């Protein structure tokens, strides 16, 4: 395991306010993620893992506590800075792929690069390389609806890798896939991890979680256990 901390959560709390009613979903979460780690965060639905994912992804801000991403304190950042850090340091993989339907494979992969201000030629080159890496170089001008679920998810992975992010966040990446396609995606994750990518995967399945070297189990907005496989 690498010794550099890429992300660090310190006593993260999240409260949702609905009129007079307030619900605390996260009751003080403290976790450190190291470079090159492959972590699964699991727990039953309603345990707060999605909220945690949103905070890790800088899509949402914690009510209290601090979140350091790549050594930067994100709690004080404004909307523009959060957008920039999302685009530059994070890669997202969603359960429902979230590709843009009007754009083809290549354009989807290029999207994060566009917002980082890469030149068209550069982003083109990067995107073609990534399409090759996920085995879709013969589909670059297909639209998402012309692809199978597994293929779409691989486009999403290529898109997540485009800016060479610090962390790849995967939210139930195999949730919409059949077993075989799911297994292929998980194999791809293993491969990426072996190449040194830091991966955080959210899942509700113990079976999936235990595939990864480290798994964090959540319950009722708190960390229940944080285990590493000793191998």
């Amino acid at each position, binding site marked *: 395991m690498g010794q550099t901390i890429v992300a660090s959560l310190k006593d993260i709390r999240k409260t949702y306010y609905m009129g007079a009613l307030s619900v605390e979903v996260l009751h003080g979460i403290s976790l450190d993620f190291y470079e090159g780690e492959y972590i699964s965060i699991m727990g039953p639905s309603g345990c707060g893992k999605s909220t945690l994912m949103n905070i890790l992804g800088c899509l*949402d801000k914690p009510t209290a506590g601090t979140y350091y991403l790549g050594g930067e304190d994100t709690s004080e950042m404004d909307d*523009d800075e959060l*957008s920039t850090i*999302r*685009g*530059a340091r994070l890669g997202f993989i969603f359960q429902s792929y*979230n590709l843009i339907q009007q754009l083809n494979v290549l354009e989807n992969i290029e*999207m*994060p690069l566009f*917002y980082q201000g890469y030149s068209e030629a550069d982003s083109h080159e990067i995107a073609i390389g990534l399409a090759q890496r996920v085995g879709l170089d013969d589909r670059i001008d297909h639209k998402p609806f012309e692809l199978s679920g597994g293929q779409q998810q691989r486009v999403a992975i290529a898109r997540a890798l485009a800016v060479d992010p610090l962390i790849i966040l995967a939210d139930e990446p195999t949730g919409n896939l059949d077993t075989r396609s799911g297994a292929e995606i998980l194999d791809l994750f293993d491969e990426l991890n072996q190449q040194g990518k830091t991966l955080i995967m959210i899942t509700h399945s113990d079976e999936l979680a235990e595939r990864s070297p480290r798994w964090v189990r959540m319950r009722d907005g708190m960390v229940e256990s944080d285990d590493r496989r000793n191998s």
Partner: protein
Amino acid sequence: MTVLGIVIGVAAVIAMLAVSEGASFEAQQQFRDLGANNILLKSVKPAEVEESSNQGFGPPQAIVYGLTIADVETIRDSIPGISNVIASRIVKKNVWHLGNSMNTDVVGTAVDYPTSRNYNLRSGRFFSETEMRDHANVVVLSDEVANVLFPIDNPLRLSIKIDSDYYNVIGIMESEGFSNLGQNQAGSSNAAPSRIFIPFTSSKSRFGETTTRQTAGGMERETVELHEAIIQIDNQEGVIETGEIIEQILARRHKDVDYAIEVPLALLRQAEESALRDQIVAGAIAGISLLVGGIGIMNIMLASVTERTREIGIRRALGAKKRDIITQFLIEAVILSGVGGLIGVVLGIAIPFIISAFWGMTTIVTPVAPLLAFSISAMIGVVFGIYPSMRAADMDPVEALRHE
């Protein structure tokens, strides 16, 4: 369908600008023909006199009315800045050549009449000072009269007959420019589509001062010294003021209002003002269509934003800032309204052509109009795209990503 409002608005802007531009050009052309430096005076039969002449039996008395030579001389001598005065007598006569005849206005006038009204001679010449002095029987025909009396021959050097006298044709004048516009506005009964011109002196000695006219009620005799006078002013700036002074002089000298004064420049100003009013009305109509079009754009953009909530969430997650989202949707709105604008420009240029073709109106599409209209349509896109774009940008990324 969505861009229809923009299309109509833009087309309306261009078409209306073209029509009003054409109309004001036409009006200006007409007034320029009358002469911007001229003041026109006309004799008008006063209403009271007409009534009294219809009473009683026996041969009707000659009605005496209108401008006199003395009037014109007073005006010329008392107002500085008058460069020339051209007085005319207009008598309605049957004119003959062989078997062809025509009832027309015979204008007895001065030698510089054509230059004063910017009329051009098509062929031949106008009469000279000598012919004026000699009370010569010479005539200049207008195109129309020439065409009726001389359907085949060249009328030059031939002669026409008026009453029992023969007149040599020495010139043909362009009919263009005999606009009825001024005459109608002055309420004169002398309006005629065609005229022929003889020396003032000849008119006086051949026809006399009293003329007999056939009317519905019988014969009508009237004595009019001058029917028309053109007063030329040196300086255009003094025209309107001089017109007022002349009016005062005439008011003092005439018991009845048996004259009409017409200042083309003042009419031109009025025409310009009314053209401006037309443009304001046209602008308001175009504005309303554009407003409706803009609201249409806003509607479709709002629908698009809602439909693409998920996409907005994805883009935000992938690093798009709020202003990136705003830019994206603004560009889309501008493209939408720009396409409408483009169609509108095409239509707007076509409409004036159709108007010109079917109604013979002068329309002028200045290059500024389509440019202006198109930029307005693009601006509509921006203005009405802002709100939907802001809505898109202000969405919470988490909510947007969860949107189905």
